[in-house]
């Protein structure tokens, strides 16, 4: 693990309005994550884990506080420049895979590189290589509906890795897979860590957390002591 910090969160808060009632999803969360670290975020449902991931992933604007990714304070970055940060620094793995059903496995992975000015040849080569490394070499042309849950999640991980991001954010990546597939997914994340990539995993599964370098527990929108 590198000692340099890749992610720094300072006093991060997010308040949603439910009608006229404010709901404080996150209250002044501060944390830092080092390059090549694998961190689990745990907590009960509704505690603010997914909100934290959305704010760190620049998918939503924080009400207050700072998110600094690789030295850039993304909370100060104008909206129009956030897509570039998402492309270059972040990769997302969702619990429900979120694959485009009209595209094949290789099409889904290749799509992630389309917005990064990567040539078509390179996109296809890289997508094929990623899928083969994840054991999906014989599933390249299959549509998501023709793949098992575990296979779909591996396609989703390949897609997150396509742009070689500094940080992979995984929201409940093992929530809908069996234990064998869970082990395989953990193995993939461990190999990412070994290559110096940072992996942040939101999970309910202590088994997954046990494989991480540390666990951050969130309760009622704040970090538990």
């Amino acid at each position, binding site marked *: 693990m590198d000692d340099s910090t890749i992610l720094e969160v300072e006093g991060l808060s997010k308040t949603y309005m439910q009608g006229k009632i404010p709901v404080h999803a996150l209250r002044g969360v501060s944390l830092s994550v080092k390059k090549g670290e694998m961190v689990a975020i745990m907590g009960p449902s509704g505690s603010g884990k997914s909100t934290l991931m959305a704010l760190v992933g620049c998918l939503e604007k924080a009400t207050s506080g700072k998110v600094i990714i690789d030295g850039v304070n993304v909370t100060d970055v104008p909206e129009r420049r956030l*897509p570039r940060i*998402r*492309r270059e620094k972040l990769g997302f793995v969702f619990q429900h895979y*979120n694959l485009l059903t*009209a*595209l094949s496995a290789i099409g889904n992975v290749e*799509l992630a590189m389309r*917005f990064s000015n990567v040539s078509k040849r390179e996109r296809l080569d890289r997508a094929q290589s990623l899928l083969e490394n994840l054991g999906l070499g014989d599933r390249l042309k299959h549509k998501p509906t023709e793949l098992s849950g575990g296979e779909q999640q591996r396609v989703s991980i390949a897609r997150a890795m396509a742009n070689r991001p500094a940080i992979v954010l995984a929201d409940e990546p093992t929530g809908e897979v069996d234990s064998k597939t869970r082990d395989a997914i953990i193995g993939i994340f461990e190999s990412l860590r070994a290559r110096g990539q940072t992996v942040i995993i939101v999970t309910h599964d202590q088994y997954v957390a046990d494989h991480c370098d540390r666990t951050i527990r969130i309760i009622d929108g704040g970090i538990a002591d």
Partner: protein
Amino acid sequence: MLDIIIRNATQRKVRTGLTITGIALGIFALVVMGAMSENFNQTFEKSMSLTSESIRVFPEIGVFGGGLTSGKVAEVKRVPGVKDAYGLITTSFEEGHGGMGGKQVMGIPPEKSQLALNPVKLKSGRFLQPGDKYLTVVGTSIAGEFDLQVGNKIEIHDKNFTVVGIMEYTGSFFDNVATIPLETAQDLYNFDNSLSTIFAIAQEGVDEDLLAKRIEFSVKGTSTISPTELREQASQSLLIFSVITISSALLAAIIGGLSVMNTMLMSVIERTREFGILKAMGAETKDILLMTLGEAAIMGVAGGLFGIGLGSALTYALNSWLSTKGMFLFLITPRLIVVAMLFATIIGMVSGLYPAYRAAKMSPMEALRHG
């Protein structure tokens, strides 16, 4: 990006097909009405260029005889500045089949035959000459319809006429005219000594507008239309005709555009989560706009192509059928095709603007939470 746009457009084939059909019908109406308008425009323009040099003299009340006689022609000729004048009668070739595009019989003084038809040239035969009685010079459409050659007979108002000349194609109303000697026409249609119109030709250097006023002033019971007035009247009539035809077609096309908007709104709502995924992967607002607008434009282009194809096919078939009756009603011009295609594309894109804006402005998380 084009492959994604095409993939999105073809993903829901029935809905896309129905939308394209909606636009195609609008553009079809635009092409058919536009072709009719183009044909009238061209016919008017050519007719104007062939006949606009003369001052038209009409009876003060009504144009169907009564007021004008051969005596009036002599009076018009005496007006200072008039080089020559002649009277003629025009009537429908077949009773009850007059009107725009219909065949006409024109009774003209044989000695003025060439002048009255100037600058129309003959494809074969000769112009009418003094002493001719049941002889005719016919336009190219009439010759085509009745398969006439010089020397053949044609029945006009229950009398047989021998064709002595056939005009070259002009693209004007002359193509649908059979000219016969004025006196024969007056006998045939019981016009006695009456005339429909007198044509007056100005001497060189004489202001035609002023001369027209002078004729009105000098020859009692007449009204005139100078070449300038004729051009203005024709332009106004054409403009009104074009506005009516084009607006009804535009209405049809706008309805097609609304169906694109409806389809795109549905599509955007269904794909909200997909847009969220794309944004999470780093897609920019312009990428989402391009994707959505591109899809709408593709439907517009496809609808335009189908509409133009259908419209061209129908107008071609109708023209072929009408040509057997000596009529030609539609004219597809390059500018009509370009306008119809541009209109289809623009209407597709404009209709896609709002759905595209809705898709692009959503925050990634808001879109991901959808559905």
